[in-house]
């Protein structure tokens, strides 16, 4: 089962960049968002809080478009440059697991929201861009949801997600910095992996 999953995953990561390279970043954000919302709108399990199903959805539809190494580097800050390649790999893996869960949990609270895509200011030759969207929900003010993307080879990859002005990535900076200065980079890896194990064990 596990082997099958990794095989699927490998296939996905090979296929995804090929698709991504043809798309401009704003078109890509729109397509991925609409793909995900189409599934969520029809899936009563996800809407009623089935995190596992939401995680599967995010892993297949969203993950290939994210650059987790870059995200982790941003969250860790200065200490990143002191990490060995092995530590970088483990940090990115653990942080990815945590972020995917956060993102998936947000999906399970879906209730009739729609997403509005704002025109992005981009010039030819730009290698980084912010794609701005707005989550519109009846009865309250729209929530701004921005994606920062960077060109990696031919493909655009998301390296930050900003909800109502709050970066899901840099929000960890203080906590991570503190942990590294207390227990070192390995301590940070342990902290992340303990949390992931705990959340995995507690899931329904």
């Amino acid at each position, binding site marked *: 089962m596990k082997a099958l999953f990794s095989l699927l995953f490998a296939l996905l990561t090979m296929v995804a960049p090929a698709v991504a390279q043809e798309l401009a970043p704003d078109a890509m954000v729109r397509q991925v968002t609409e793909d995900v919302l189409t599934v969520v709108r029809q899936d009563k399990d996800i809407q009623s809080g089935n995190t596992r199903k939401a995680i599967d959805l995010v892993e297949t539809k969203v993950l290939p478009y994210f650059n987790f190494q870059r995200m982790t580097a941003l969250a860790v800050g200065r200490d990143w440059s002191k990490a060995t390649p092995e530590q970088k790999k483990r940090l990115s893996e653990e942080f990815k697991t945590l972020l995917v869960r956060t993102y998936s949990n947000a999906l399970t609270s879906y209730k009739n929201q729609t997403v509005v895509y704002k025109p992005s200011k981009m010039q030819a030759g730009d290698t980084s861009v912010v794609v701005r969207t707005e989550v519109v929900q009846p*009865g309250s003010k729209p929530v701004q949801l921005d994606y920062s993307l960077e060109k990696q080879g031919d493909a655009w990859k998301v390296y930050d997600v900003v909800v109502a002005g709050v*970066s899901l990535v840099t929000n960890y900076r*203080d*906590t991570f910095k503190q942990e590294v200065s207390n227990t070192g980079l390995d301590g940070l890896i342990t902290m992340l992996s*303990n949390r992931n194990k705990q959340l995995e064990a507690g899931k329904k």
Partner: protein
Amino acid sequence: MACAAAIFAASGCATTANNPKDPFEGFNRAMFAVNEGLDLVVKPVAQGYDAAAPLPVKVVVGNFFGNIWDVWTAVNNLLQGKGQQAVSDVGRVLINTTAGIGGAFDVAGEMGLTKHSEDFGQTMGKWGVGDGPYFYWPIIGPRTTRDTFGWMLDTYFDPVWRIDDIGLRNSLVATRYISVRASLLPADKVVEEAAFDKYDYIRNAYLQHRRSEIFDGELPHEAVDEESSQ
């Protein structure tokens, strides 16, 4: 349980963090604990409301209080020199109070008059007043020093607080509080699972969020790279 203890031990260390924006962290963490305690009572009420009220009811309640707040938003937009937005806000109030039946329906929003969200803390921020030390207050939660003063003025001019009938006033204030708490329920699970130290996570999120609000979301996303962290 052992897991919880490990997590507690891990996040406990963060208490020693010296964040220059949070010189009163000891006091704030104590107040944070107070609010977490209060929330043991408030949250179930909000959950009850969330479960009992059908979506259209919640939308109407949200719109009703939103419409009242739009008046103050208009004033603040004007104070920030955003005349066009202020005019749009006044238009929203006029349309929603009449055609929207006392603010129950956001007719103006359907017509394309976008809802804004302003308060006096943002206005002062726009005028150049700095954050000042960060506070975590009982009941109202996180506020910078500037936003604490802003909140006082917001409350002073808040039409709901100015209602003479004390009984009506209190029920409206309570309803609004529960409605706001209910709207935050989906975020609870996200924060619980995402945060290592909930206090720290909320502090960072609040400060980032307010900064973005002051710039009306048009905050230049500085190319934060790993070498240039402050």
